[in-house]
C-alpha cells in the first residue's frame, strides 16, 4: 500500500513538474464590434486570409513576443478558429492587429481568465496536453471553470505551447485541480 502511494505521489509530482516547466501561451477574447481581419503578415499591406467574429477566441502564437509595429498598429501572430477545420490548428494561423498606437487605445482582443463549457455533452478534463487520460469528472454545459496560471497575474487562461487545444484549467471554487480542457469545446471569458 505504502509503495502504491509513493508511486502515485511520484506520478503526480512528475506531472506537476512537466506542466510547470512547459511553456504556456495566452488565450484571448476578440473585443471588437465588427469582424477582426486575419492577415498573411503583420501590416495593413498584407492579404486578408480570414475574419473572426467579435467574441471569438484567438490564441497568441508565441509565448514571448513583442509583436510587430506596422501601419500604426501592434500586430500579433495568432491561431484563429475555423469551423471547417474543427479545432485550433497550425493550418489556421495568421496576423491580427492587437491595438492601435496612441493614448487610451482600444484593445482588439484581450486576456481571459477562465472558460464556459459550450459543448452540449460537457467536457472531461485531461491529464496530458495531447488530451489523453481523462479524469473521471465531467464538466457540464454552461459551467464556468477558471484558467490555471502558474505565474498568477493578468493572463489567467493559457494553452500548452504546441497544443493549442489544451487549455489549462483550474476550478473557480478554489479546490485544486490542474488539468487540460479541450479549448474547442470552451468559450474563453474574462471573469474579473
Amino acid at each position, binding site marked *: 500500500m505504502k509503495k502504491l502511494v509513493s508511486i502515485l505521489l511520484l506520478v503526480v509530482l512528475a506531472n506537476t513538474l512537466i506542466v510547470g516547466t512547459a511553456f504556456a501561451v495566452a488565450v484571448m477574447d476578440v473585443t471588437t464590434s465588427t469582424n477582426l481581419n486575419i492577415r498573411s503578415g503583420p501590416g495593413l499591406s498584407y492579404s486578408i486570409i480570414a*475574419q473572426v467574429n467579435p467574441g471569438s477566441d484567438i490564441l497568441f502564437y*508565441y509565448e514571448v513576443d513583442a509583436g510587430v509595429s506596422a501601419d500604426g498598429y501592434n500586430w500579433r501572430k495568432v491561431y484563429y*478558429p475555423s469551423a471547417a477545420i474543427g479545432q485550433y490548428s*497550425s493550418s489556421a*494561423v495568421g496576423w491580427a492587429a492587437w491595438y492601435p498606437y496612441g493614448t487610451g487605445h482600444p484593445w482588439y482582443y484581450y486576456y481571459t481568465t477562465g472558460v464556459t463549457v459550450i459543448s452540449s455533452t460537457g467536457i472531461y478534463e485531461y491529464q496530458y496536453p495531447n488530451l489523453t487520460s481523462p479524469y473521471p469528472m465531467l464538466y457540464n454545459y454552461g459551467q464556468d471553470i477558471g484558467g490555471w496560471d502558474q505565474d498568477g497575474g493578468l493572463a489567467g487562461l493559457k494553452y500548452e505551447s504546441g497544443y493549442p487545444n489544451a487549455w489549462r484549467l483550474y476550478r473557480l471554487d478554489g479546490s485544486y485541480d490542474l488539468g487540460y480542457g479541450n479549448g474547442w469545446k470552451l468559450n474563453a471569458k474574462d471573469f474579473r
Partner: protein
Amino acid sequence: MFSKKKSVCLLTLLLAVTCLFVYQFKNGSTFNGNKIAFAASIQANNLNVEYIKVKIPSGYSEHWRDIITLQERSDTYDNNGKLANRILVLEKGKRVISIGNDNGKMEAYSWILPDDIANENKTLLSKSLLENVKNELKQSKWIDKGKKKLVDGREVRVIESSFEGLTEVVYVDATDFPIKREFFKNENGQLKLLEERTEEYKKISSQSGEIFEYNGPEVKEIPAPVGENGKG
C-alpha cells in the same frame, strides 16, 4: 509658324500620349506613374519577387510577394528548421492555401475568399512590402540615436521608439532597411532585453513562379473562415 516636319512630329507625339491614356483607362486602371515605374524597374532587373526574412528566438519566418503576378507566400519555421505553417495567397488574392504542421502531422486546407475581400487583396498584392518597411521607419515616433559600427564592420543608423513600457531599437543599414531589432521591457526603471530579431529584405528573381507552386499534403477544400465564431 511650324515647319511641316515639326508639325508631323508634334502630331505623332500627341497621338502616342493619347493612345497611352486610352490604353490605361480601357484596362480599368488609373494612371499611376510611380507604380508603373516601380514595376518596370523590377521587371527590367528580373527581380520580380520581394523577399523578407525575420529571425526570432523561436525560429524564423520568410515572406515572398510577387507584385506583378499578385501572389504571396508566408512560411514559419521552428528552431530546428521544421516548417510550422505556410500560407499561400494565389489567384490575385482570391484563393488561400494554408498548411500546418501540428506535432509532425501535416495538413493543408484551401478556400476561396468572398469577392469583396478578394478585390481588396488584389489591390494590396500590388503594393510593395519593402517600400512599406522603409516608410514605417520614417514615422515621427522614431528617435534618431546616431550611428553605430557593428562587429562585422558595417555602419548602421540606430533609431528608437517607446510605447507602453516597451522600447524598440532598430538598426538600419545603408540600404535603409532594418537588419536588427531589439525590444526592451522597462522594469523598475531598468531596460531588460525581451527579444532580439535579425531581418533581411531584398528583391529576388523567380521567373518560373516556383516559389508560389503548391508542394505539400493533399489539400482539403473548405469554406472560407470569414464572419463566423468558428467553434460549435
